[in-house]
């Protein structure tokens, strides 16, 4: 019998059955994927240390001793000052007027409550460090750094039996993190949802494999099907990091309107635009992205001004559940999401298709 092509180094490292990692902001998805034999990572960048501790306890109550991960956005650069109220005053009048005109034409209501961005107050070194300390204290099985290099925390994490993964958008970042001793590197291509590096998944993955030595590489960006999983392994990855795939799953706490939009969407319904945050990110098209793409639109402001400008719109769209206004980060593989399936089924469908793909390629049956 041929070796099971889906049993990779990642499976041994994490004690999982399938080399599929779900990145999600929903705890129920974490539990479902973990219990289905995959691995799941909960994004906690926006949460307080107390909320993170509570979420970890909840996950443990659902998955027992199985491994899971927590993802934080460790900043890699910070401006000398960052008072959001002061920044808001610097947004030009032309941009406020463009937003107010758009608001009138699209009949966009005011947000129902306080805008989450304004309550949250930003992320600096101190807040990120305190988030991280909770993960160390709780001995979370895997810490993922969604942006900055986690080298400074490696020794402490490893002493506590915690594995550390880093997400990169360039090969030189992968090389540096590998040399520092991270346990695995997620190489993310521009096909991914949200903010990404500038390189496509098919290029960034083998580039990182080439420079990372023995450090395992996990492929991210547009990965939605079993064929993608098979392709990623052929590129030298030990597994895949998937995000969009879970947004319309039955367990996901996303609004049903967003789930329906994701199920109907193709790659053409996503746009790589800087109009939400000031940085290019891939999201579903909506009234906001269409307005800022018009020739008469003012030039998009740099971060953090543009995200201060868009925050009322985003909050109003979600508060009032307006399908024409709502958006969500989505990768280019979104067209392969065609139904609201349980996360467990998504894992099994992906595995089945990947195995069938390998069988087609090699003509050999897997164990």
């Amino acid at each position, binding site marked *: 019998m041929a070796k099971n092509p889906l049993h990779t180094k990642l499976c041994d490292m994490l004690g999982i059955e399938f080399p599929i990692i779900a990145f999600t*902001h929903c705890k129920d998805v974490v539990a479902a994927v973990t219990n289905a034999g995959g691995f799941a990572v909960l*994004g906690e*960048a*926006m949460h*307080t*240390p*107390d909320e993170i501790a509570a979420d970890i306890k909840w996950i443990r109550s659902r998955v027992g001793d199985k491994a899971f991960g927590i993802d934080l*956005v*460790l*900043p*890699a*650069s910070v*401006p*000398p000052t960052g008072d959001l109220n002061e*920044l808001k005053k*610097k947004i030009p009048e032309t941009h406020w007027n463009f937003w107010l005109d758009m608001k009138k034409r699209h009949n966009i209501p005011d947000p129902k409550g306080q805008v*989450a*961005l304004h309550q*949250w107050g*930003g*992320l600096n*070194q*101190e807040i990120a*460090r*305190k988030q*991280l*300390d909770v993960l*160390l204290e709780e001995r979370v099985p895997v810490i993922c750094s969604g*942006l*900055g*290099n986690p080298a*400074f*925390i490696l*020794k*402490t994490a490893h002493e506590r039996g915690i594995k550390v993964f880093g*997400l990169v958008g*360039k090969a*030189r*970042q992968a090389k*540096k993190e590998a040399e*520092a001793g991270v346990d695995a590197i997620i190489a993310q291509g521009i096909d991914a*949802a*949200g*903010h*990404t*590096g500038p390189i496509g998944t098919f290029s960034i993955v083998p580039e990182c494999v080439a420079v990372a030595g023995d450090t395992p590489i996990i492929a991210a960006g547009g990965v939605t099907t079993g064929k993608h999983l098979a392709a990623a392994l052929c590129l030298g990855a030990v597994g895949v990091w998937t995000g969009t795939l879970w947004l319309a799953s039955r367990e996901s706490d996303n609004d049903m309107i967003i789930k329906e939009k994701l199920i109907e969407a193709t790659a053409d319904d996503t746009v790589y635009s800087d109009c*939400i*945050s*000031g*940085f290019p*990110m891939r999201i579903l098209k909506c009234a906001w992205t269409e307005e800022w793409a018009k020739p008469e639109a003012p030039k998009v*402001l*740099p*971060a*953090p*001004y543009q*995200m201060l400008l868009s*925050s009322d719109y*985003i909050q109003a769209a979600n508060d009032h559940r307006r399908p024409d206004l709502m958006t969500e*980060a989505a990768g280019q593989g979104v067209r392969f999401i065609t139904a609201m399936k349980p996360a467990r089924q998504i894992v099994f469908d992906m595995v089945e298709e990947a195995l069938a793909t390998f069988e087609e390629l090699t003509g050999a049956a897997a164990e």
Partner: protein
Amino acid sequence: MPSTSPSQPLPVSAGFDPEKAGKRAECDGGGPAVTAKYATREDFAGTLTGEYVDHGNPPWRWYLMVDLTRKPEGYAWDSVWCESESIYLIDERK
């Protein structure tokens, strides 16, 4: 050991690293995009002053970069704090 409990202030100490002072460098920087729950990536290039700040224990070191020759369009400041492992020294690049 982690540096603090969530309610305690984070230990912070500043210093100067003469080895880094005056070095030209690039920084693969970035931070969170709050409204979207995801990270952003920002590229900077400039000169390190050698000043640094360590946050917490074990220390998370940040260097000050000035005389920025590359920064995101519209970046409103003349300097940026860069995480030490996200810095690439230009003159030592292979």
